């Protein structure tokens, strides 16, 4: 249960980070607050859109799905099932692979680092670690009850 709660909180955080980047990409707000990073370079690069959609939109959608699954998995009827644990781990694996690819593009192709993108990648990595840990941890409750 704790891992699902942690994943929900992290996904909420990631959702807002991705939402900020997406809103900037569709022209809401002005300059991206980025400190000394290269957020605008990354956001203006040709890699910032994939399959006709801003990359940040995939982030918004991805975090929203993870958040929804984590909250659903906390409902009493799902709490003892292992299915949501595997689903969260699968979603987090997809998310973390996508984040690794985007970080590679920033470092070696675009040659600029966007702090918000790094923040998102770190959040996704934490979700993946938590979800993977939950998969390999022994369930704290018996999978099937056998009465003597």
């Amino acid at each position, binding site marked *: 249960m704790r891992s699902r709660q942690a994943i*929900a*909180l992290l996904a909420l955080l990631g959702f807002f980070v991705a939402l*900020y980047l997406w809103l900037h990409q569709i*022209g809401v*707000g*002005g300059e991206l607050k980025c400190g*000394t990073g290269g957020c*605008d370079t990354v956001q203006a690069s040709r890699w910032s859109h994939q399959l006709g959609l801003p990359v940040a939109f995939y982030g918004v959608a991805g975090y929203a799905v993870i958040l929804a699954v984590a909250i659903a998995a906390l409902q009493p009827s799902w709490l003892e099932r292992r299915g949501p644990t595997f689903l969260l781990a699968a979603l987090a694996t997809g998310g973390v692979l996508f984040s690794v690819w985007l970080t590679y593009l920033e470092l070696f192709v675009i040659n*600029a680092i966007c702090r918000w993108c790094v923040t998102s990648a770190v959040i996704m990595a934490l979700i993946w670690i938590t979800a993977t840990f939950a998969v390999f941890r022994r369930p704290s409750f018996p999978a099937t009850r056998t009465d003597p």
Partner: protein
Amino acid sequence: MKRFYLMLGVLTLALGAMLVYLLKSNPSAPRAANTAPPAGTVVDDGFRGYTMGSDAAPVEVTEYGDFECPACAGFAVIQMPTIKEQLIATGKVRWRYRDYPLPMHPYSRLAAHAAQCGGEQGKFWEMHDQLYMNHSWAQTGKNPTGLFRDFARAAGLDVSRYDACLESGRYAARIEFSRQEGEQKLVNGTPTFYINGKMYTGRNNSDAFKAAIDSAAAARRK
């Protein structure tokens, strides 16, 4: 469990408030750098544009350009490398860049100012190239101030000095003087070129330029 949902609710509210703050507190483009100075304050500071090439070159080309203009960017990206290699580096031509910000472009004065701030640190052409080579900023309609700062960094500028320069808007009058000068010379669009002071009306490709420049050099020799 109740405590968890309370925490989730509080976090949602806090992050939502932070998002609204980030979106609302975004600075607009530095106003002084992105607007024409008031009428009557434009004075001639003696500056006549940055040049590239030998002072002894027999031909001078003056380009009136607008950094936000797609045709200028196309010329800078496609034709200029050949012109640099075949005409400027060989000492045949000296190239002069003058600003001619067009009124329909919301950030062309800001871009011109960014290039002037680059020039202040001896890197006008590096900044010029950054602005033209990464021209996607001109198609988004979004405030490019942050992106220009990235360009400044990529051009090797001292970014804090660049920021101070842009914020001060100290070259706004110089840019407006250049535009007024272009207007007097009957510039009717960008890019417009003058070869040894005479308006060039040929095609904007390196072959046509080479022919026109050879012709201007021959005319000078006579």
